[in-house]
């Protein structure tokens, strides 16, 4: 039947089903559930009988959405260290509201007045220079949509048994914003990097003086000193007044509250590029400077911890991203990976950005296992958990990017499962 083409096991339907041009009305009629009779009052509601509230200088979301919150996970014994996670299962599209952008801080969020803040560029340069926010705001700005992902995102999936939690609790240390800033290459050109300068020590103005060594090559490629996020100045917890933005690279290298860039010949070997954020392999060697985040996807609706509302037509929705470039394709399975079918990607697809995929699905009410598998434009394909762990072992800790599977039970319960 046109528009009702089953494309893979478990009830996956052709992606054209949800497109106006091709979905046959007759086919859709067959799928349409019979809605329960509406209990809607016939009275004119009170909010239509009197003028509503006035304008306000800074908006707030509807109070009816106040339950949509980041999951805050502090490091024991501290208030300012740890993470808060984006509730991916409650969001749609690709832009994360700034208020819900994930956080990972190493010693809290500093309260910085822009007048007190400078970015110092020094080291192997011709001219050591400082820049304040007012100066940077006069530079040629560029705006780009990019994800930031903590390299420790999804680390719970290294555990032997699947943790029961939502998509956001497990994978919500990834967020995506439109970032506006000054290309770092412009500032480095002004300071004049000497030929021996191959690395940059980037340091934040937080109480941890968070610091990472960054290759100059990346700085000249697509790095920004970001000063706006989603159209307004950065949020304090995202680096106000200025942060480093290294598209596609592990979150902690995108140093927030950026205060200092020292051009060096070799890495400084800071704590967060030796003792932490290095990848211990089964042979006892640790990989260092594993910067790009791997190609990855996760179905956000339905999500682990959720409850289906009965058999019928659903839209599977999820996010895919890659630190190497654009998402080229996302396949979805509803039979635990036996058969797959391509999902629709929501345009535009940005490089090194969250990409929304959607897939039509008729759930027959029986047990199924949903999964998504992303591929990027370098040809890299998201691995299975089994393959990832066979290569790395489980003490690896960072850069988890394997296929996520959700089981849907006959009673509608959605759970995290290993396949």
């Amino acid at each position: 039947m046109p528009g009702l083409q089953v494309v893979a096991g478990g009830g996956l339907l052709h992606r054209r089903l949800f497109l106006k041009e091709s979905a046959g009305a007759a086919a859709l009629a067959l799928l349409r559930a019979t809605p329960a009779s509406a209990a809607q009052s016939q009275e004119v509601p009170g909010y239509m009988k009197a003028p509503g509230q006035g304008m306000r200088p800074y908006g707030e979301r509807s109070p009816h959405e106040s339950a949509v919150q980041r999951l805050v996970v502090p490091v024991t014994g501290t208030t300012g260290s740890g993470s808060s996670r984006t509730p991916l299962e409650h969001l749609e599209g690709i832009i994360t509201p700034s208020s819900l952008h994930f956080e990972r801080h190493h010693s809290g969020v500093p309260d910085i007045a822009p007048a007190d803040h400078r970015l110092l560029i020094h080291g192997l340069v011709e001219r050591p220079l400082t820049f304040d926010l007012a100066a940077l705001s006069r530079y040629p700005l560029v705006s780009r949509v990019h994800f930031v992902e903590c390299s420790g995102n999804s680390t719970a999936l290294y555990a032997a048994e699947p943790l029961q939690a939502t998509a956001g609790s497990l994978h919500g240390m990834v967020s995506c914003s439109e970032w506006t800033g000054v290309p770092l290459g412009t500032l480095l050109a002004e300071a004049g990097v000497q030929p021996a300068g191959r690395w940059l020590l980037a340091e934040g103005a937080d109480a941890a003086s968070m610091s990472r060594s960054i290759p100059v090559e990346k700085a000249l490629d697509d790095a920004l000193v970001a000063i706006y996020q989603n159209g307004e100045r950065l949020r304090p917890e995202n680096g106000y007044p200025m942060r480093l933005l290294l598209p596609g690279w592990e979150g902690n290298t995108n140093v927030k509250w950026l205060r200092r860039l020292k051009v060096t010949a070799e890495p400084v070997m800071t704590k967060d590029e030796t003792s932490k954020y290095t990848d211990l392999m089964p042979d006892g060697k640790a990989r260092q400077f594993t910067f790009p985040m791997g190609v990855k996807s996760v179905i956000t609706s339905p999500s682990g911890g959720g409850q289906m509302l009965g058999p019928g037509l659903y839209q599977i929705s999820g996010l895919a991203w890659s630190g190497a470039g654009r998402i080229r394709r996302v396949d979805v399975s509803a039979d635990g990976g036996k058969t797959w079918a391509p999902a629709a990607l929501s345009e535009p697809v940005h490089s090194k950005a969250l990409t929304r995929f959607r897939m039509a699905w008729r759930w027959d009410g029986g047990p199924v296992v949903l999964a998504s598998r992303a591929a990027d434009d370098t040809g890299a394909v998201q691995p299975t958990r089994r393959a990832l762990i066979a290569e790395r072992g489980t003490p690896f800790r960072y850069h988890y990017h394997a296929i996520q599977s959700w089981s849907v039970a006959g009673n509608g319960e959605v759970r995290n499962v290993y396949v």
Partner: protein
Amino acid sequence: MFTCDRGVRFAIAALMFAGVTTMAGQAQRPASRSRPVVPQGPGLGVPAAEALVAAWDVSIPPDGTGLPPGSGNPAQGAQIFNTKCIACHGPEGAGSVNDRLVGGQGTLTSAAPVRTIGSFWPYATTLFDYVRRAMPYPQPHSLSDPEVYALVAYLLNLNGVIAKDAVMDAKTLPRVEMPNRAGFERAYPPRR
């Protein structure tokens, strides 16, 4: 945990208007590898005074460049540790609410590796750099340089890396051979 109170179910009518998607796998523009043009700036950088650079430049690389004057030994470090560090890191760095700092040698190939200064950290200079910039957690930048040298000496001695009477200063610290010095492989630049 949340439930899917927002609902994953869609009204068919709403879906009819969701006409802005394209098919996956359609030809996309290839990833551009060309170097973006660096825009010319207005030249507003303010020359940084030498004194400012000297005051701000606290990072210490493995060769020890920039290590300050002063020195400290393990006994002095033990006194500071037992006052300012023990609450989070436990007696003799055995770990408490926060990281264990001692032991773990020989565990890196096991199923439960213990990553400490002695078993994992490749450079002793990192310890000075990190303690001076970030520790103790509630009061970073509160220790004097000799106090940092003393703490570093204490932690290295607890890990069996230096002798009990060894003195750490700008000359001796970069020469310390960490047990896991050869335990790291650089993944950057990537093999192309």
